[in-house]
């Protein structure tokens, strides 16, 4: 058994006081501990952004890579060593701008990793530019007259891409957040948790208050997470009421189950022998 303190790192987070990322650090650590997963068997892979600094603060194996590229890294790690719990963690700019392509194709493969996005609807680390989830009209450093793009919706994106576990959480509710992350990790396949994570410094629109007023829990409704179109509709619900919880969850075959070579953990394979039969192909 592990406890949350097993996951406590030695570096103090450098996030702004009140940043939504703190709740996620707690929830991830808590979920892992609840599941009895050991730090040594956990790998947290991130991109670049405020949020992506997280692997520095958690006691586990951490891979703090480059902007937008965490999913290919995380996917490959899982393929090589399926015994690891692999968590991808990054920002909305990281995942829905620079990494959009990887997100789509990673979800499509349904590899058994958990992808958590700290969705603060802004570029935090680069000091406040519009992100793909920024609301239309929002004033930022790059949109001084208001953002002109319709925001991308991570939920419908994930659903269309083929993610088999799609959930939405809010940093203002650590308990639910931790439960959702835990379910994501338990889910066999590509699980995605988008977290409303207020950026107290640069996003003056989507604050804790903004969400507190609007969020409601899907599991307190009669939502059926097996129903794709219901999930899709719920995902598009945005305004006075915003649903959180598991929008969608199904079982489906994972890429790593389909590939012959991956049938046993790649890390355990011995070096291949080049046999005379192979060489014979070349005469």
């Amino acid at each position, binding site marked *: 058994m592990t406890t949350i303190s097993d996951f406590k790192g030695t570096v103090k987070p450098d996030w702004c006081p009140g940043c939504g990322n703190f709740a996620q650090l707690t929830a991830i650590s808590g979920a892992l501990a609840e599941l009895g997963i050991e730090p*040594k068997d956990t790998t947290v892979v991130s991109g670049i952004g405020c949020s992506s600094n997280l692997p520095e603060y958690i006691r586990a194996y951490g891979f703090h890579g480059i902007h937008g590229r965490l999913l290919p890294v995380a996917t490959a790690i899982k393929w090589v060593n399926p015994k690891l719990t692999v968590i991808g963690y990054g920002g909305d700019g990281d995942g829905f701008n620079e990494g959009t392509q990887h997100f789509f194709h990673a979800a499509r493969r349904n590899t058994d990793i958990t992808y958590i996005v700290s969705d603060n609807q802004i570029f935090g680390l680069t000091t406040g530019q519009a992100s793909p989830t920024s609301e239309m009209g929002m004033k930022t450093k790059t949109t001084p007259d208001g953002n002109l793009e319709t925001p991308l919706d991570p939920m419908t994106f994930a659903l269309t891409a083929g993610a088999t576990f799609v959930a939405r959480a809010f940093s203002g509710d650590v308990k639910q957040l931790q439960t959702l992350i835990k379910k994501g990790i338990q889910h066999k396949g590509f699980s995605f948790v988008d977290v409303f994570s207020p950026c107290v410094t640069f996003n003056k629109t989507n604050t804790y208050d903004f969400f507190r007023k609007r969020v409601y829990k899907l599991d307190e409704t009669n939502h059926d997470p097996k129903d794709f179109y219901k999930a899709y509709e719920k995902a598009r619900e945005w305004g006075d009421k915003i649903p959180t919880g598991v929008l969608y969850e199904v079982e489906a075959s994972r890429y790593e189950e389909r590939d012959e070579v991956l049938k046993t953990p790649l890390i355990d394979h011995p070096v291949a022998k080049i046999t005379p039969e192979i060489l014979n192909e070349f005469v």
Partner: protein
Amino acid sequence: MNKSEIIVRIAGAAGDGVQSAGLIMAKVFSRNGLHTSTYNYYQSIIRGGQSWYQIRASSEKVKNQGDGLDVLVTLNKDGLERHTNPEINEGGASSLNGIAIYDKSLTGFKEFKDRVKYCPVPLSEIGQKYSKNPLLKNTVALGAVCGYISADFEVLADIIRDQFGGKGEIAEQNVKAAKEGYEYFVNTYGKADKKLQYSKKRKYLLAGGDAAGLGAVRGGLKAFFGYPMTPASSFLHFLAQHSKSLDVFVKVTEDEISAINMAIGANYAGVRAMTGTSGGGFALMTEAVGMSGMMEVPLVVYEAQRAGPSTGLPTKTEQGDLLQVLGASQGDFPKVILAPRNVEEAYYMMSEALNIAEIYQLPVLYLTDLYLAEHYETVDNLDTSFQINTGKIAKDGMENYRRYEFTSDGISFRALPGQPGLMHNEDSDEHDEKGDVVSDAVTDPYLRKLAMEKRMKKIDEYIKSIPPTPTYMIKDAESVVIQWGSTQGAVEEAVDILRGKGMKVGIIEITHLYPMNSDILQLVKGKKHVIFVENNYTGQLRRLIMSEFGITGDLIVKYDGESFYPGKLSEEIEAIIRR
């Protein structure tokens, strides 16, 4: 026919089966114990146009596709005119001085009787006797060539059977058609006077891409991630086709960026993994090359150059990516660039590349080119034994573990996820010995300096292991040519020609491009001429060597998409020496 060597060219349109006929022809030679080298001239088009396949074979080592043309098999009229006309020389290829084999239905072409013996054969007619498949005429033509050169028919028959999967109907139709072509030719035109020195010692015949793939497996490769791009695809296809038999996981990804990041992820997780692409795809990968350098995750990238810039000439050869590979990614960090010269070396060097990447924990860029990746060469022997060296891997629970410990050689112990007691973070931000970032709360210029020096030390360490620079006939050479990569064969043959004329020329052959062995300072010392031969416009290796050692010289370049031909090259070298 020169000495005991022969050059056969098969010409036709894309889709005519030129390439597969060419490969069968090459196997006729290699299985008859001859040294063989091929060249595939083709376009970025699936059907139509004009392509050709040249095979050169000899009882002595053949170093490239060669000057001269003894036997032309042409599958269309355009080919007949193109390859017999001495005024047309595509990129330096010779026109025919020998026999031309073609379907007897072809008529009304311009003839060059002084150099060409026209040998029409009812290729289609014979083919149609056995099958409706129009490609059977190619087999008839192959039979005819074998007849002409007195090759044992059974060797050809076996190759055909291997090609068409055993003794089935299709295979037998082909064998019969070939036989009839063989006999028709011998009965109608007789056999060549000069005989080739066949032997029973069958040789390996493989392309550079195959050899590199096989070398990678020998080097412990467990996972390959890639995105198709000519001419890197032969490597990808080899591995994909052998995924199960050679136990390599092969994944084609959504793009090159994903491929390289996956390769880095897989190496990080503890298996030997790599990626491969050509110049345009490599451009996309460069950012992650820097990540490998900074995070010290081993990585090998196979970069097969084609003629650029940009999309350029996708099916043509060039050595134009050296500066791109050298400059790959921002900032200063250690990287290694290797370039094999021939098919055999492509094999051994790839295994080495995987060791270097793990021993020094850095990106190794394996730079090859279209000519090398796609042409076939015979190899006498392939040593499959290899000592894998994974470098410093931490022991479970190692005390006071620091992933980036400042050691005297700059190399620290890697720990793999899953190992107990060694949890740490690897970071693309600058970091200290433990892996903690030095730029978040308080930057530490002093630690930053140490971290840079730690990484760069590895290069000093690596330099000690670079083998002596290979040379050719350098002992008594008064002038020296410097080459790299696939031009080796043409350059050596050019030097052979010059030596034949009594000129004392030698070669320095650079395989370890960066960092480079400084022994070349000794090697060029006192030479009257230093001549760089490169398959690019600006002389990229010359630039590099100038910047490293202040050595420069004359420059012979070829940037028309074709590789060098030895005869022409020898004249260019001679002109410089006699100037």
